[in-house]
């Protein structure tokens, strides 16, 4: 067992090497060996995935010496593709080794390739073309928010990884590390995109849409568990995402500015951890509006700060009031309280909360 653990510790190095110029000295024999290692790691994964204690041991060994959970047990299962594709894109790989690589990538594996679909590169090429073809017919309808296919795919991968992590890592102690890792990952995207992906992921978790179920829930480790939708499991996945959102007030405020009112209302409805902070944020923005008697309307006090205009604020509250009964109740109670705090005026132009309320009640559909 110790021998196996030692070997497993080599995987990060192997993957790292495959991405860099160190491969320029490889010949076809070296390449064969590398690919064989890949298959060996996959074999280990398949053997041990039903044995939790061994899985944990291997997972821990993998993480030793890496900063943050970059690689964990499930990646062992994907080793041949990770390695193969990384090598393919590595221009430093010399021709003889490359030719060998091409042959082994295209060859159906000696072990029957009837396992999970993503293992075939031919299928990959076909699917990539499919994604192009299916987007071709003109004038597609705009997908509902957060449901755009590419965005969903990224969200699904994120969720998948978080689930895998959730099964490996011991609770509590490693939460901070997980958060750090998540931040690092999300930094790979532009901030607006990261917001969209996180929002889509959170929605997918709650809606459990057909696409999510179809989108390969039966992945390497998780296909074994029958009850993936168990509360504890989902908590483990939503937790880090919410922590990331709420962790920095700047980030949360940018998040709420960027996304639309209806999407945020939807999220607030599903996640009670979000509704309170969101309402608080709207309150702060509301307070920054000043009444301009000449124009007869509320305007922003400082235009250089990124905040909401009166119309946008109204729209946000309106969306919240169209949400679930709980959310609606919460919002209306908050508005009532704010109005009271401001002096409970009934006249226009004195308190932003007074002026919001009638606009909302007329817009509420039962």
């Amino acid at each position, binding site marked *: 067992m110790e021998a196996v653990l030692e070997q497993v510790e080599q995987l990060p190095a192997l993957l790292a090497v495959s991405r860099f110029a160190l491969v320029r000295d490889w010949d076809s024999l070296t390449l064969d060996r590398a690919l064989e290692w890949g298959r060996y790691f996959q074999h280990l994964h398949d053997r041990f995935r039903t044995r939790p204690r061994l899985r944990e041991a291997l997972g821990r060994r993998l993480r030793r010496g890496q900063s943050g959970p970059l690689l964990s047990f499930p990646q062992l299962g994907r080793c041949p593709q990770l390695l193969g594709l990384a090598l*393919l894109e590595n221009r430093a790989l010399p021709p003889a080794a490359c030719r060998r690589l091409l042959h082994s990538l295209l060859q159906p594996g000696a072990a029957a390739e009837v396992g999970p679909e993503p293992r075939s590169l031919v299928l990959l090429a076909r699917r990539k073309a499919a994604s192009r073809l299916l987007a071709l017919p003109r004038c597609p*309808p705009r997908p509902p928010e957060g449901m755009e296919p590419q965005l969903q795919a990224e969200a699904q991968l994120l969720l998948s990884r978080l689930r895998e992590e959730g099964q490996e890592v011991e609770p509590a102690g490693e939460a901070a590390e997980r958060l750090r890792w998540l931040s690092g990952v999300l930094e790979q995207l532009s901030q607006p995109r990261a917001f969209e992906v996180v929002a889509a992921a959170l929605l997918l978790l709650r809606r459990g849409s057909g696409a999510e179920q179809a989108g390969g829930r039966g992945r390497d480790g998780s296909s074994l568990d029958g009850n993936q939708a168990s509360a504890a499991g989902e908590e483990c996945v939503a937790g880090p995402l919410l922590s990331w959102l709420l962790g920095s007030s700047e980030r949360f405020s940018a998040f709420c500015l960027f996304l639309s009112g209806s999407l945020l209302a939807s999220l607030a409805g599903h996640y009670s951890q979000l509704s309170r902070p969101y309402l608080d944020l709207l309150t702060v923005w509301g307070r920054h509006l000043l009444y301009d008697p000449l124009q007869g309307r509320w305007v922003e006090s400082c235009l250089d700060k990124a905040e909401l205009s009166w119309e946008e604020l109204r729209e946000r509250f309106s969306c919240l009031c169209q949400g679930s009964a709980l959310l609606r109740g919460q919002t209306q109670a908050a508005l009532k309280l704010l109005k009271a705090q401001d002096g409970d005026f009934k006249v226009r132009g004195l308190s932003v909360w007074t002026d919001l309320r009638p606009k909302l009640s007329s817009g509420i559909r039962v």
Partner: protein
Amino acid sequence: MAQHTTVSKLNFEYWLDKAIEWGQATTLESQKDMCLHLPQLQEFLRQIYETLKHMDSFVAIQQFPLIGQLLGRLCWNPFVIGYDESQKTLMWCLCCLYSSEPQNPVELKANSWIRSLLCHLLSSSKWESNEAETSTFTSTLGYTSADYYCHLVKNMVFSLVTELKGNQFNGLNIQGRVSASRVNAVSLFCLPLITLPDLTSLLETLLLYHGGASKEILSLEFLETVNEAFLKKKISLPESAVFNLWLRHPPSLEKATLYLLDQLVSIQLNSLEEVACVIKESLLPQAAIHPAIFRIVNEIFKNALWETSGTPEVMTVIQMFIQLFLQAHQNENKQHKFPLKAYFPYHHQPLVTALLRCPFGLPTTQWSQHLKHISDMLKAFVEDTNISSPADLFEIWFLVACFGEWLDIAAEQLLKAAVEPDALLWLLAFYYCPQNENQQRTQTMVEAQAVYNHLMMLFSCTVLSVKDLEAAVYSIMDIEQCCNQHLIIHLLTNFLLFSSGGHTIAQEFIYHITETTDSSKEVCNILIRTAYRINRIGEENQSTVKLLNELLQKLALKV
């Protein structure tokens, strides 16, 4: 060398021109053109690969100077890459052209270009861009482009399915929500992808889609290709989708029926259970519950029978089909299913009703009576009402022939429990010789009666010799009355199976008949049908069953 003559220079130029044309194409017409050419292109690529794999990469480029351009252009065509196995063959061709020891800048450049193409095909970069940018987000998560595209395609399919299904709300068609041209475009663009398993739900949704327009919305090329794939068992679809396909595209139904006939007539089947299995898998009996489908299939069968001059194999297939159709109809739970008589609207209804009666729903003691009833009705209809045209006669004959089980039972009953032998004989005579302009049928009847009487005399003899039956054999040898031959062979075979004396000489006598009259296939067919019927009833004495199996084994070797 023999190899490169198959891949001629002309073909290269032709396909390169096509590839260039397609590269600039954005119209629906050109896209249809692409879809039509995909199978031939795949075959051409396969030929190239077969040639390339024996060649050195440098030699290959010398030999086929256009190959780089061609493969390069095709790699950027999603229709080609998405189709069936074309992407595999293309990638293998590229692999063959990759040099493991590049000697000069040209080879180095070629290698680099091949790497780029493969990265374009396999990495997470966008289709249009030339850069092989791996999405860092995906790889940081520990996934590859394989995982990403797996999810993406499933999402896109789901999104399309939702869009199409959303158009039908509680059975009402909300027209205008999805335009007909968009549905048409979707069906055309997913044509190359039909055999990709991810698309099954989209195929189903398209086939079940009804936009309310009277003209067919789905592209005809799409319907044809789906049918092909289904017949070759490359995809599996739910029954309702297949039925819809055939209902909205009759040529596909025709193709499916002819394909079934081909399958069954060309291979040697040893039991009717196998035939039944193949027919059931084709889904045609189940589909025929839709009267429109039944009508078309029926017509095709009639034509097939006409063209093959009524070979027993084809007749057996048709009879099996009708039986399975009746079973499927019975099993159908829907409230609004049509009564069986509705499927045979042009015929004498009492006759239809009598023929539709399942033999196993009646006690065996009543079989003879029921057959007499059928025979009397048929005789009255044929002889008294002047059926003059051959077409009408054929129609009525076809109706009776479809219910072959009753005919087989008639032959059996004649020997076992003949209540009204004349009526039963007449029925068989009609089946084997329907025409009577020159009194053929009457003549057949007379001769059959003679043979029958002869057989009945011998029926109770426990010890028989071949000579005793030879008189019957001589009458078969009379070539002029060939319809007689079939009837008499039928009677003789039944005699051998069901009389105690017949058992002892069965093997010898059948050998004798089949040698002298070249009818081993026919006898085999009779035995197979009898075996099937006996298996279903289950009550028949053991010696008959044993004999039947022995005879079948012997004959199967001969045929």
